[in-house]
């Protein structure tokens, strides 16, 4: 019941405003801690040397890029089933953040790849999947910006995200089949993580920081989008915003 109440922009807007500073400060703290642990405390890798520190940005960014798309698809499904307008606001607020994380993952990966693999870019399965994910984000964002009517933009965008998320596993496995060079997953494994805790802890702290960053920015963007959409509504004027 309480969730239904906060699905209305009228109640969501002040709630988001109250939560935002908490998330933002937590994000700054964890980001500082994670960067300190990653850049100064964690030992250089015996093979990769100091370049391993790129991983503390690269891996969380890559995780976030996929996480955000999955959350967007979940929100699209929820919005379609229960006709909640707030999910549309969320999706369009989240897409540029997801695209940015994808771009960061690609760029940092390329910076890491040059000293390690000897090239800026290889057509490896994971890199290619990530690039295709970026295309999916860009396609979504250009569809949204091409449609003037906000209702149509939201509904068409929701369909596109859902079609994309159905296709993502197909794309991922077909690309994997096509070519693989990237090292296999080493954190999430059935037999426990395969990296040392001195690396794993800063990685997880950075992961938390990125999540908090995402939540803060999404709340901020949703609030400004609500302001734009509901500029004429009464509750907003009563709040004196």
């Amino acid at each position, binding site marked *: 019941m309480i969730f239904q109440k906060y699905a209305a922009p009228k109640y969501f807007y002040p709630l988001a405003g109250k939560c935002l500073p908490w998330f933002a400060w937590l994000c700054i703290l964890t980001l500082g801690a994670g960067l300190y642990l990653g850049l100064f405390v964690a030992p250089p890798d015996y093979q990769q040397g100091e370049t391993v520190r790129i991983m503390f940005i690269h891996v969380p960014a890559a995780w976030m890029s996929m996480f955000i798309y999955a959350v967007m698809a979940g929100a699209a499904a929820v919005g379609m089933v229960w006709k909640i307008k707030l999910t549309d606001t969320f999706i369009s607020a989240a897409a540029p953040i997801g695209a940015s994380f994808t771009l960061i993952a690609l760029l940092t990966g390329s910076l890491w790849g040059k000293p390690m693999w000897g090239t800026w870019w290889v057509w490896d399965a994971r890199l290619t999947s990530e690039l*295709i994910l970026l295309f999916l984000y860009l*396609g979504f964002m250009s569809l949204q910006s091409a449609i003037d009517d906000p209702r149509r933009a939201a509904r068409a965008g929701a*369909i596109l995200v859902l079609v994309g998320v159905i296709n993502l596993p197909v*794309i991922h496995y*077909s690309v994997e089949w096509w070519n693989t060079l990237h090292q296999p997953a080493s954190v999430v494994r059935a037999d426990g993580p395969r990296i040392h805790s001195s690396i794993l802890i800063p990685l997880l702290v950075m992961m938390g920081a990125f999540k908090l960053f995402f939540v803060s920015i999404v709340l901020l963007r949703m609030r400004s989008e609500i302001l734009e959409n509901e500029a004429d509504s009464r509750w907003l004027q009563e709040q004196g915003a």
Partner: protein
Amino acid sequence: MATNVTLFSAWRRVLKRELILAYRQRNDIITPLIFFIIVISLFPLGVGPEPEMLRTIAPGVIWVAALLATLLSLSRLFSNELHDGTLEQLLLSPQPASVLVSAKIFSHWLTTGLPLVFISPLLAISLDMPFNAVIYTTLTLLLGTPILSLIGAVGAALTLGLRGGGVLLALLILPLYIPVLILATGAIIATSNAFPADAQLSLLGAYLIVAAIFAPWISSYSLRISLD
């Protein structure tokens, strides 16, 4: 009148109307076909005429050209009907819109995908492909081009009547075409190296079935959104 039209006869009538329209505007069928041929013949000019090289790139070249040729023809899938109001009648009709839309998609494949399938052996031979690979090129196009029409219909429905529709459509649809491209070229490359290509063909078939089930339904839903 509407009550005595069965679902199948409605489907057949939509298909017949589409085919008559396509026959009267033969240009729309011929243009993607010529585009397909021209794009493929640009590659030997670009990379050099060595048969070795051409044989290596042929599966990818033919398939990328097929993707682009399909893409080129997609924007007209619903746009004429949007302008003359037929599309609204289609969605208002008592028959389920997804079934009628599937007839439109089928006719799109008959008029753009199928011609590519027929011309492809000729182009494959011109790129010096071995006999097996020529057969598999045709076979994968036969299995794959319907998928292109089906997924493309969703994109065409979503971008209906938007400015910059054509380029936008490419941006939305091309990433979704990647599995088809990988599976189809994988099958051709496997056969030319004397490996079995059953796995790729099966997966392509599976993708076709899934697309055939969901795409007409999602397209008709998208059309409703676009017409709202």
